[in-house]
């Protein structure tokens, strides 16, 4: 297969061995790479009964066929494993250049398994792999680890690493790269920690062959030009290179989509003003921090040097400041950004962290916990300093509340009892991200049915057809009317297509922010054809997405998913809010929509892929190994 290495590196941490393995072409035709390849290795090697911290769990870091193309967005790559948050298949994607460097090192993926008997890190240098002692790195934060590898092994290595939260098995621990991008969701950092694997470093000069370099070059040129011009056509406060994803405050507030006060409100004008993109830009003194080849430039760097929370580093994404700021009703942009950066250092997902801190605040308000439990912190809504301090306690797993909250909202609520489960905004053990179910019912359907990485906004993104006006016209998804956001009629079909689309993107090695800026499914299909030598149209692309979604569903069935799991929804979203655009709206009818989603997918009433579907997709052998 062109455009890939046809090879992965198998790393047995228990035995301390690193072994290359050939990958058949059909695996790429079916699952492309990235998230698809990670799911494939779970299917191939992690049997029934495997759980997240089991050495048999495969934690796979995988590039996609687009990685390495000089095309905006072609730097995204993925990792996947059984999640410690919900013990099902999961994957998460990051940017930076790790995926590109992995292919240059000669591999499409690194598949890790087993557990090292002492902390180690993996170095892959132009095809040669070795495990090294990470004893001195253990206990340091994720950025210090990256610095240590750059200092000791070479500045030109691309590195992924975990901090203390990953080592100490916080169930929503993430994995960082380049101090700015994160495999954020699903707790993959804790899986890495459970294997005593502190970091991976890759570099190399391997030149994999592209099928049609001239065609690819022409596509890159046309696409990159269009994407640059698209952003320039917008008012400054909506230009992503100026303000990053902070532009979303302006976008989401009038739709009632923001998470406010542990999702008990859908309107907070003071907060919207405080977190407006213009304030974000001014207070954090941000500058762009682009990824390789990217013309969108959503990442940004803070540059403020004064005050108690001064730092120069990652400016928080929308999801981060929405969950850590809006959801806790905190308005100090600098303090909350600093708290987000602390989470990054310790390696914690800021979405889950924002939910669980808000959960703790509500428990404090209700008298379920007190200052005796909170290390003396006055955990009231809007206490920015308390958010910073509690972040430290969770990240370092301080004894008591900090440790408990590191278990995630579901387990913490069960442990606290006294009705705490009623305001635990989670599903299947995963905290709900910054899209309000009341603002568009399809968000609820996305979270309930997602099988790529549990309930995850980003691995469905169907809410974006309303909240971000994203369309997939090649698959029949065009402009929708505003009022349709509270109807179920089209939602199952839209949701299915978005699940498949996200699987394609995260497996191809592309960034959805390009699609958010006029990159089309036709662009993607043409690019994959030029790279891999395929002859696909956009229907073939859909079929590939269907295969991935089906494989993920089969994996979930293998690891214990039950029909009831899709029907246990956070109670909070069924409590209507009285103000704002989503006032009075709750997703009644969700159960029927889930069943219709199953039917549209070719799943039976119990949510299991039918034999007919498996035959149509040529996947009978995948079901046979359940």
């Amino acid at each position, binding site marked *: 297969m062109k455009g890939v290495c046809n090879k992965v590196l198998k790393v047995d941490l228990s035995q301390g061995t690193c072994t290359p393995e050939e990958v058949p072409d059909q695996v790429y035709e079916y699952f492309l790479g990235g998230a698809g390849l990670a799911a494939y290795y779970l299917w191939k090697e992690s049997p029934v009964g495997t759980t997240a911290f089991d050495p048999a769990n495969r934690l796979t870091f995988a590039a996609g066929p687009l990685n390495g193309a000089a095309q905006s967005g072609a730097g995204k790559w993925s990792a996947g494993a059984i999640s410690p948050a919900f013990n099902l298949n999961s994957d998460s994607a990051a940017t930076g250049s790790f995926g590109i460097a992995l292919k240059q090192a000669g591999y499409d993926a690194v598949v890790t398994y087993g557990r090292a008997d002492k902390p180690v890190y993996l170095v892959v240098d132009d095809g040669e792999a070795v495990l090294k002692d990470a004893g001195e790195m253990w206990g340091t934060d994720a950025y210090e680890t990256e610095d240590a590898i750059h200092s000791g092994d070479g500045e030109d290595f691309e590195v992924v690493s975990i901090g203390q939260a990953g080592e100490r098995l916080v169930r929503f621990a993430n994995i960082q790269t380049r101090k700015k991008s994160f495999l954020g969701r699903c707790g993959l950092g804790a899986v890495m920690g459970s294997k005593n694997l502190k970091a991976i470093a890759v570099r190399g000069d391997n030149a994999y062959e592209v099928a049609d370099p001239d065609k690819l070059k022409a596509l890159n040129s046309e696409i990159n030009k269009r994407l640059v011009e698209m952003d320039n056509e917008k008012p400054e406060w909506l230009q992503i290179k100026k303000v990053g994803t902070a532009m979303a405050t302006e976008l989401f507030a009038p739709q009632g989509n923001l998470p406010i006060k542990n999702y008990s409100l859908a309107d907070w004008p003071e907060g919207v003003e405080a977190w407006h993109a213009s304030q974000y830009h001014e207070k954090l003194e941000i500058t762009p921090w682009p990824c390789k080849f990217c013309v969108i430039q959503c990442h940004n760097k803070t540059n403020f040097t004064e005050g108690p929370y001064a730092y120069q580093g990652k400016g928080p994404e929308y999801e981060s400041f929405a969950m850590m700021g809006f959801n806790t009703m905190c308005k100090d942009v600098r303090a909350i950004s600093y708290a987000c950066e602390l989470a990054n250092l310790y390696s914690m997902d800021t979405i889950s962290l924002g939910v669980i801190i808000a959960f703790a605040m509500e428990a404090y308000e209700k008298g379920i916990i007190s200052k005796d439990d909170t290390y003396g912190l006055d955990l009231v809504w809007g206490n920015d300093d308390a958010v910073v301090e509690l972040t430290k306690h969770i990240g370092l797993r301080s004894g008591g509340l900090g440790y408990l909250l590191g278990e995630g909202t579901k387990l913490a609520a069960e442990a606290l009892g006294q009705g705490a489960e009623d305001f635990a905004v989670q599903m299947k053990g995963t905290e709900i991200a910054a899209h309000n179910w009341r603002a568009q019912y399809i968000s609820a359907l996305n979270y309930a049915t997602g099988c790529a990485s549990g309930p995850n906004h980003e691995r469905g993104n169907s809410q974006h057809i309303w909240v971000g006006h994203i369309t997939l016209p090649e698959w029949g998804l065009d402009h929708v009317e505003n009022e349709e956001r509270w109807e179920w009629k089209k939602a199952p079909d839209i949701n299915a297509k978005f699940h498949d689309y996200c699987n394609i993107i995260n497996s191809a090695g592309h960034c959805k922010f390009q699609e*958010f800026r006029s990159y089309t499914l036709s662009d993607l299909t043409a690019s994959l054809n030029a790279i891999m030598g395929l002859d696909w149209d956009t229907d073939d692309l859909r079929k590939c997405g269907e295969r991935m979604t089906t494989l993920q569903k089969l994996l979930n069935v293998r690891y214990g998913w039950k029909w009831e799991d899709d029907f246990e929804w956070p109670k909070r979203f069924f409590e209507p809010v009285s103000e704002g655009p989503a006032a009075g709206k709750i997703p009644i009818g969700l159960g029927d929509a889930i069943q219709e989603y199953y039917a549209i997918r070719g799943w039976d009433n119990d949510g299991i892929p039918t034999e007919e579907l498996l035959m149509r997709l040529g996947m009978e052998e995948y079901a046979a190994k359940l």
Partner: protein
Amino acid sequence: MNVQIMCKDHEFEPGTTFEKVAQLVRERVKDEPMIKTIKAKTGKDHIVFVLNGRIIREPEFTSTPLNEGDDIRWVHPYFGG
């Protein structure tokens, strides 16, 4: 003459210019809350049009004839998130 707007077939008389497409799209979304908001703020709807993979701007609309098989996309001002 058949052109594709967001991958759907549309028939136009020969000699029709791009201006007609822009009018159709703008008429369709003029009452949308988000469009009203941005027009109130900036005086423009900021819809961006793409003709055969390239952005086409307002001054070119009346001088650009539609051609058989054109691939036309339009992007909402709040496209993103």
